[in-house]
């Protein structure tokens, strides 16, 4: 018994904070992924006036979305066509948002609101930067979907509302779609690859 208690105490005193991930811009620069949030329709379950979708998608980490309803708070991303999505990046910062920082997030995909299935659930412990969420299906390939829903199920310190500063969604750049002109590594090849 005591050992179990000890173990519990041990766990509580040393929570593993979620480490911040790399800046997604670097991901973009590798040319392997592309941000496709602009091709989607974004909607929120609730928001405070002046703290809505625009602030969530404005590339500015100072502005944020603040929800204004009951949990779970939802961010819905709907594409015009079935899109391959590889990674979801969320920026969360415990130091600035404290009790508004999400702690449990569920990512669901599907065709429409009635058809969503959870594919990822993540626990955040005092995050302090970008969180990369790979969206892969059972076969470890990027998911193809019409809609993604990000649900904030719980916040730190049991806060009711949540702040979310930025969300980015990435699709893999299809090499083969450049049509039999696969990605070359050297400039010599790339120079002759296309006419611009």
């Amino acid at each position, binding site marked *: 018994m005591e050992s179990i208690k000890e173990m519990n105490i041990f766990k509580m005193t040393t929570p593993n904070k979620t480490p911040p991930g790399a800046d997604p811009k670097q991901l973009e620069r590798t040319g*392997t992924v592309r941000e496709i949030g602009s091709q989607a329709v974004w909607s929120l379950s609730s928001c405070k006036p002046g703290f809505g979708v625009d602030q969530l998608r404005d590339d500015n980490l100072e502005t944020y979305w603040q929800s204004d309803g009951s949990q779970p708070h939802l961010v819905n991303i709907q594409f015009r066509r079935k899109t391959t999505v590889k990674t979801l990046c969320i920026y969360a910062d415990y130091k600035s948002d404290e009790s508004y920082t999400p702690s449990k997030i569920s990512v669901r995909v599907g065709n429409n609101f009635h058809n969503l299935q959870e594919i990822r659930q993540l626990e955040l412990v005092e995050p302090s930067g970008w969180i990369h969420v790979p969206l892969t299906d059972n076969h470890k390939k990027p998911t193809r979907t019409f809609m993604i829903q990000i649900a904030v199920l719980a916040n730190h310190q049991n806060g009711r509302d949540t702040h979310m500063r930025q969300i980015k969604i990435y699709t893999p750049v299809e*090499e083969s779609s450049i*049509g039999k002109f*696969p990605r*070359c590594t050297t400039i010599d090849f*790339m120079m002759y690859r296309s006419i611009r």
Partner: protein
Amino acid sequence: MTVLQEPVQAAIWQALNHYAYRDAVFLAERLYAEVHSEEALFLLATCYYRSGKAYKAYRLLKGHSCTTPQCKYLLAKCCVDLSKLAEGEQILSGGVFNKQKSHDDIVTEFGDSACFTLSLLGHVYCKTDRLAKGSECYQKSLSLNPFLWSPFESLCEIGEKPDPDQTFKLTSIQNFSNCLPNSCTTLVSNHSLSHRQPETVLTETPQDTIELNRLNLESSNSKYSLNTDSSYIDSAVISPDTVPLGTGTSILSKQVQNKPKTGRSLLGGPAALSPLTPSFGILPLETPSPGDGSYLQNYTNTPSVIDVPSTGAPTKKSVARIGQTGTKSVFSQSGNSREVTPILVAQTQSSGPQTSTTPQVLSPTITSPPNALPRRSSRLFTSDSSTTKENSKKLKMKFPPKIPNRKTKSKTNKGGITQPNINDSLEITKLDSSIISEGKISTFTPQIQAFNLQKAAAEGLMSLLREMGKGYLALCSYNCKEAINILSHLPSHHYNTGWVLCQIGRAYFELSEYMQAERIFSEVRRIENYRVEGMEIYSTTLWHLQKDVALSVLSKDLTDMDKNSPEAWCAAGNCFSLQREHDIAIKFFQRAIQVDPNYAYAYTLLGHEFVLTEELDKALACFRNAIRVNPRHYNAWYGLGMIYYKQEKFSLAEMHFQKALDINPQSSVLLCHIGVVQHALKKSEKALDTLNKAIVIDPKNPLCKFHRASVLFANEKYKSALQELEELKQIVPKESLVYFLIGKVYKKLGQTHLALMNFSWAMDLDPKGANNQIKEAIDKRYLPDDEEPITQEEQIMGTDESQESSMTDADDTQLHAAESDEF
């Protein structure tokens, strides 16, 4: 025009010549309010147009009747600037619905400005898709005035092949005189005429000095002048005695004296007319003419000299009117008796009622002492060819006095002007004087000499234009090697100018020799950092070479310098595109389009960005727009082909690539793409032929060889594929694709050890890329019966994110994966 208006007019022209548009506009408005004549209207409209407010000129002229040719021309120009092409056309030629005027009608109506009118009309026709008519107009315009470059350029761009030799030549004296507004050139051989002209000039303009000065200052006005008196004598001289308005002249004289004596243009013609164009052949005023001092022929540069007839300065060398006795006139430069000359271009103002006859005289003035040989400002002809340079061969004058002429030609097309090379003039004058003193010239009468000299200068310009024309024509037909060759043989002081170097840079660009192109363009930036035309090609070159720092410097500089030029925004867009920030690049390309909706390249670049962001519909629209603006923009045809290729509509793709190839037959990249498409259409033989052709055209293109190898591989010709790939390995040793394909070939040949080696090299060179391709290969191989091995592979692949996984595992995976015979 009454006497009352002339001082005001003179003041207005003076203000215009000094770019003091507010003053000019104000005075012109007052003049117009006072006298509602068409001439005043034209003057006011000109002031508005020159101050950059074409819409004001347009509305003003529309609101009143314009019957004079110059008003009509200006109105048409405003219409075209404001994109009201139909209206412009109607004004110039009667429009679509009325009876159209023939070119001859236009020529008679507009007289000396017919060449510009026809050029404008040609532009309208070309923009409204009537290329045949447009080209006719351009041809006619060129035949009327071979000094015009832009019709020639437009002809080349629409795909016609005008012959530079035929176009740029002075066919007859008549022609010569027509081109130059005050025909400062035509020398009338008979004295009577010469006598007459100045007199008429004198009599008509009591205040001609002012006019003179004004006219001198105002060179561009010359365009509109001269209808009737086309054959003027060069040096019409206005005697200072006739200067009535002392104040005016004194002011002007001061001005004149203060003018920098940079040089005098021999050619009073168009070159000298505009204050901007340095004349062809320049004689610096300061240099005392060595040798004979008795004669002095100075051709003043318009802006620099307007010699005010110094009132009561008979001691100064008088400028003799050609064929005239020396008693008249003296326009001498203050102080220096040698220097004389205001080049006065006699010119009558407008046609019609108001021949205010402000004679604008721009002509080489010849010194009065009749015996004195005009010291031919042979300086004219030569800037640095006192020694016989190879160029001089081209530019030798045809007639006996073999004065080595190296005419400093004004830069064509872009109006950049090379500064007269003053140092050379000294040499030349020395040389010339020596030649002259040989006495050969003495046999000629001054006027014929002057005329010959002018003609020689013009000939020099013509021969330069011929060469440049050939080069430009070759470039527009995408005969790039030829173009480079021709343009490289231009004389070095013309070679080292922005326009020529930009054309050469573009030729290298079209040949896909991006390193060379970059070198040339950086030279352009060094010598002419104000040049924006052609910089979009430079930015694309840097994009191809992936030189992001240089590209970002270029785009910053250009956008700082000129926010209204589409080229600057294209460069900025290219910069962000290289950084893979496609949204921002799209924004900048859209800005370029806003700035100039008739700029085809901006549409093309925007289309490419949309392709990269997978918005193919928008991309299609952009490429189509580019083609609408310029049907010969082969990049846009290529873009369309690429989109169809991505959508797997291979025959459409082939068709579009073929169209692009028809325009630009020497592009190995295009041939390469066609080859690949043909292979996709299963026409492998043809594909190989095409790729062979591509390799012949450009042996340095590694992608052609690569695709040839992959086609051979697909056709199971493994040995030849290997051979090809081995060669390619030598050329581009660091390309992972090459090793990957070699690996696949070896696999097919059963040499697994070599295959593994090559795959591992490929992975080393590009871990992520290899993974992608292998994954793809796996995807393609996802068949139900092969489940087991595949899931195994996938497992391995899933854990194998870095090269650290055991080589054997990875290799096994690759081996299995590389079964696909497609690439």
